[in-house]
């Protein structure tokens, strides 16, 4: 009879509890899947499932509620920060976040995000910047890079016709109501790790009673960009970051501690 060696295998990757077990509708190479996973990991690790009310926006990620196993309310296009304000004001103990695309947040919803920030609403904003209107077929967004071809800027975005990309997170970071503002990306594994840390910090700040915490995440839209998935990832790390530099723009709660990652515990 053979004796088995003791099992030294360690589970290093599994589906987080709060990520539903269903196949994704997102296109191959789209960043929403990675970002959903990060959110699900954090909500699970931080035991936030039972208290979270998510606020979905309009864009490809409107279906976030199909993948995150938590309570969700859907907003009209751009209005998620106002909807989240309403939730927050009557549910002081809830964990509240919005999940918004760049068309949603930086175009139609500009007033709602700026004023929720100015009021210092205690909500976390997950802002996914793929530089394009994904859901409606790849039109130009306010975040579209100069020169970038889209279905509504077929010759490439020209400043004299369509203005300049909006660095809206930098603009928001100026407001004292914003306790934390950072920009990460999902272009490679180490960037994903750093982005997760930013999201954790944003969530911690909400739990510690801070004002708005916002993490912009540079993401991909290979179909809208006319690229393969690997090309899109490389485009983010080589090109997009030149217009939208990565890093923490402001942390107004430096003295408040950050919770531990499950791997560091």
């Amino acid at each position, binding site marked *: 009879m053979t004796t088995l060696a003791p099992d030294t295998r360690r589970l290093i990757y599994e589906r987080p509890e709060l990520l539903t077990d269903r196949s994704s509708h997102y296109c191959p190479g789209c960043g929403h899947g990675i970002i959903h996973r990060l959110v699900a990991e954090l909500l699970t690790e931080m035991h936030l499932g039972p208290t979270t009310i998510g606020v979905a926006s309009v864009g490809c990620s409107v279906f976030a509620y199909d993948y995150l196993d938590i309570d969700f309310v859907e*907003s009209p296009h751009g*209005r998620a920060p106002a909807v989240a304000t309403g939730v927050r004001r009557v549910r002081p103990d809830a964990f509240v976040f919005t999940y918004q695309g760049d068309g949603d947040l930086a175009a139609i919803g500009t007033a709602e995000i700026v004023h929720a920030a100015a*009021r210092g609403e205690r909500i976390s904003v997950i802002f996914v910047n793929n530089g394009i209107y994904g859901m409606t077929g790849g039109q130009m967004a306010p975040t579209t890079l100069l020169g970038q071809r889209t279905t509504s800027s077929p010759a490439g975005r020209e400043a004299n016709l369509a203005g300049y990309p909006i660095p809206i997170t930098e603009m928001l970071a100026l407001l004292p109501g914003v306790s934390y503002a950072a920009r990460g990306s999902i272009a490679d594994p180490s960037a994903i790790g750093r982005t997760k840390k930013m999201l954790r910090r944003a969530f911690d700040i909400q739990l510690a009673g801070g004002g708005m915490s916002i993490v912009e995440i540079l993401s991909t839209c290979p179909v809208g960009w006319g690229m393969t998935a690997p090309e899109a990832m490389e485009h983010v790390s080589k090109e997009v970051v030149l217009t939208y530099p990565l890093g923490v723009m402001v942390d107004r709660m430096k003295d408040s501690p950050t919770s531990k990652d499950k791997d560091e515990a």
Partner: protein
Amino acid sequence: MTVETTARPVLMKGNEAMAEAAIQAGCDAYFGYPITPQAELLEWMARRMPELGRAFVQAESELGAINMALGAAATGARVLVSSSSPGISLMAEAMSYMAGSELPMVLINVMRGGPGLGSIAPSQSDYFQATKGHGHGDYRVPVLAPSSIAEAVDLVAEAFAMAERYRTPVMILADGVMGQAMEPVVPIYRMPPREPAGWELTGADGRPPRILRSLHLQPEDLEAHNQKLQAKYAVISEREVRWAGERLEDAEIVVVAYGTAARVARTAIERAREAGLRAGIFRPITLWPFPSRDLAALAPRLRAIVVVELSAGQMVEDVRLAVEGRTPVFFHGRTGGMVPTPAEVVAVMERARDATSAAASDTAVLR
């Protein structure tokens, strides 16, 4: 629960009376944006709500205000928003989403003259918008029209009850006179009982997650959702019709009017009766559902109907639809903030009588 706070009449401004009625009805949250002639409502809430530890936000716009209401309503809170005509146009988007997501809310429109920026004077020119319009899609919203401040107080509580009973936004359609006028009232406040909703978002603690949404991408799903909404609207149409009549027993000419126009009509029918004309009033209180059936039942024994509105003629279309040509319908309206006078209304009633008298019967040209 009925709370009678005072036995003696107190002098109250319509906007403030409606605000306090909402508070007494257990309103948990108010969101608004300043606009005349409803600003006192917002100001009353700005003072009272924080005092009571309830939510108040002066939003960045009416879009902001109503979407805050959407978020608060999604958690099961009792929510009020108010505005006046131009602001209601901005709120139209979220009205559609809230109807689609079946979220209760009370919305007060203190109407002013339009179109566009119009004027700040009273008007009833948002009847179409309230009863058939605002946002996109197949949906309905109950619309309640008070014609006195005491009635407004009562209808605010009723609106919350209805909103929760049917999971729908409910609109109170007042006008600048109702908002601005002061009247002695014995306010009878009511707090509708709170039923556990069972759909509200609280965090998925020990239960499956809940999703509140209006998106149903599969045509089969959206049709099924629409059928469910329509079934609900059919129940509301069946059960919630309200109207009030005065001096209808022997009336030969009846004025159909709501809100401030009904106040003018009341004076007008008394004068008409003094002049020997048997006049009465039919006053819709629910504008949707419109009291079509009761009006249709009354119509055959009338010589004529006179519709009076502070508009170019909006509710008159529902009156005509209700009577289906069986009774001649005359209209008198003033716009832009002008209010019809009792004398004008009496003159139209007399014209209606003359046009429908036996002598004139075959040749009368009816407007």
